[in-house]
């Protein structure tokens, strides 16, 4: 007799647990305000990344096209994947000393793991991460970027 | 248990064991032929009970390999490092501990795969990560792969 009772009790308990589960999905079915989906390309205007978001490596230039990179190559040394190549030039300053300046600062976005060691290790704070996150391009070559703008120069030169 | 006490107990078990000082764990260097018996006694001695092998690694030294066993006791919480040196680099052989610690079977396969240390008596000594046709042992210092490894 007890087994029959257990059998029936088991059915009711099981069905009750199932109904409780259905209340959760049923609740969200009618709560349309709980929808979390974001419509991505449409909300591009509103979409704001966090300040520290590591999008891609950039070299900030000021309004007069000056940057802070002196071409020391520490970022290249610190990069674990070899995604930074610094090609520096030698120039002769007005005082007759030879001086190293940055020629091209090449950044391979395709190899970057966004560890942030280059930004952290840069002694002159010349590098930063941008908030750009749409990296898709049709040509792989476009992922290799030159960070210093053409015609730009070191900000210290202005002071001299 | 303090390292000193542990040391005494181990000397009683294996008089020829060499010790190395280490801030963290007690290092014991054991000859390869005594390893299996020594570890068995480590596990089965009542007040030692080293029953949990939490790391098994192989190290490639210029003239020999060492296989390093990090063993701890789940009951008492004391740990020990057992090291075995192989006889040269040509045909390194170490007895397998698969019958003492089940997890050793797979960690030994890994060491065999990447360093080429052969574990005698191992029931299933196959490569674990690389395919069976792979030539060479990648974690050895003298492993050369001109295509895939870029020297820095």
């Amino acid at each position: 007799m007890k087994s029959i009772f257990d059998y029936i009790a088991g059915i009711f308990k099981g069905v009750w647990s199932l109904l409780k589960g259905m209340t959760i999905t049923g609740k969200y079915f009618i709560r349309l305000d709980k929808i979390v989906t974001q419509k991505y390309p449409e909300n591009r205007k509103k979409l704001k990344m966090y300040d520290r978001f590591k999008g891609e490596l950039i070299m900030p230039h000021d309004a007069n096209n000056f940057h802070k990179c002196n071409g020391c190559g520490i970022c290249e040394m610190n990069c674990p994947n070899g995604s930074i190549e610094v090609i520096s030039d030698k120039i002769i300053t007005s005082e007759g000393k030879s001086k190293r300046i940055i020629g091209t600062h090449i950044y391979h976005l395709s190899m970057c793991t966004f560890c942030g060691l280059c930004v952290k290790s840069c002694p002159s704070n010349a590098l930063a991460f941008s908030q750009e996150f749409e990296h898709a391009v049709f040509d792989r070559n476009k992922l290799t970027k030159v960070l210093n703008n053409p015609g730009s120069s070191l900000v210290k030169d202005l002071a001299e | 248990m303090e390292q000193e006490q542990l040391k005494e107990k181990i000397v009683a078990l294996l008089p020829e064991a060499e010790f190395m000082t280490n801030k963290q764990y007690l290092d014991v260097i054991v000859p390869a032929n005594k390893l299996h018996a020594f570890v068995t006694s480590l596990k089965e001695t009542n007040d030692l009970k080293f029953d949990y092998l939490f790391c098994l690694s192989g190290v490639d030294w210029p003239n020999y390999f060492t296989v390093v066993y990090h063993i701890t006791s789940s009951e008492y919480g004391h740990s020990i490092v057992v090291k075995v040196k192989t006889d040269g680099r040509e045909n390194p052989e170490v007895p397998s501990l698969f019958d003492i610690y089940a997890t050793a079977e797979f960690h030994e396969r890994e060491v065999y795969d990447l360093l080429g240390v052969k574990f005698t008596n191992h029931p299933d000594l196959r490569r674990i990560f690389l395919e069976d046709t792979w030539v060479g042992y990648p974690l050895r210092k003298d492993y050369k792969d001109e295509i895939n490894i870029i020297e820095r």
Partner: protein
Amino acid sequence: MGYQKYDLAPLTHSIDQFLYSHLSSTWAFLAEMTLIGVVFLIFYAVIGLYLVLAERKVCAFMQNRIGPNRVGWFGVIQTIADLFKLLLKELITIRKADKLLFNIAPFIVIIASFLGIAAIPFAMGLHAIDFNIGIFYIMAVSSVGVVGILIAGWSSNNKYSLIGAMRSGAQIVSYELSVGLSLLVIVIYSGTLQLSTLVESQADAWWIIKGHIPAILAFFVFVTAGTAETNRGPFDLAEAESELTAGFHTEYSGIKFAFFFLAEYMNMFLVASVAATVFLGGWMPLHIPGMEGFNNAMDFIPPIVWYFGKTAFVIFLMMWIKWTFPRLRIDQLLNLEWKYLLPINLVNIVVVALIVLMGWYIK
């Protein structure tokens, strides 16, 4: 009765007479058959596609998502676009597969679900064929589908497919019993197997109300067993994508895959239709005995709306179940049938027989 003003029989009869008066009897017969076939084909395709969309929307809302919303307004032509995509896809033929059976299986599955629709009364006077054994016929043809699934699993020459097909075989054959027995409850109540008279018999109140506890029990058993028979979650062991990748249709591609996919949804529609017709009164409006004003108001809503409303309710119930529960294991699935549903059904039938004999139901 007020609902009779929406009787569609004169319309269908006039079409019939029009054809027969203008054509010879053979050609008229053929033309009529073709007409019905084309109507059903379009109906089938539209219902199947929009059920897929409905399922995607329902599950999306349950999961805090929006669901399809790119193709057309609110995604309304998403599934039609999907169909075109599937039509354009390559039909991959499997080497070492049994070619004849491999190609024939999707057709068996889809024809089985197609046949069942013929007997469903959609509205007053709107049914292709009014069998006097309608329920029996639907059960018979819908169980042909399992043959297609078994053939598909066997002929794919894939181990996953075979396991899926065998699971499906065990499952459908056993759940057939529960489906039949739970329908039998209403058959005992109404004393008829003919779907049109079954609907007429619910003019005063639906069977789920008139038949009280046994009918309600039978309704839930039918929905459970029907869900299992259509291979839908939580009984989707034949597909079980986390275990068998895609089960019996792992190797199918393109439109053949779409056939299996559509057949699943049409089977769901069929089960929901039968549940709506047998338990919830089909196209019959909601009538409460003794409330004439209310009944007359209800009669203003056309029967076809009632029919689709009830079917949609049952379909929603099945979707709700699918998107809430985890999947059963094969032995638990069979336990559920043989240890729970079948004994409950058998007891239920004995009780119903007693109730009908003593007249303890609302007449």
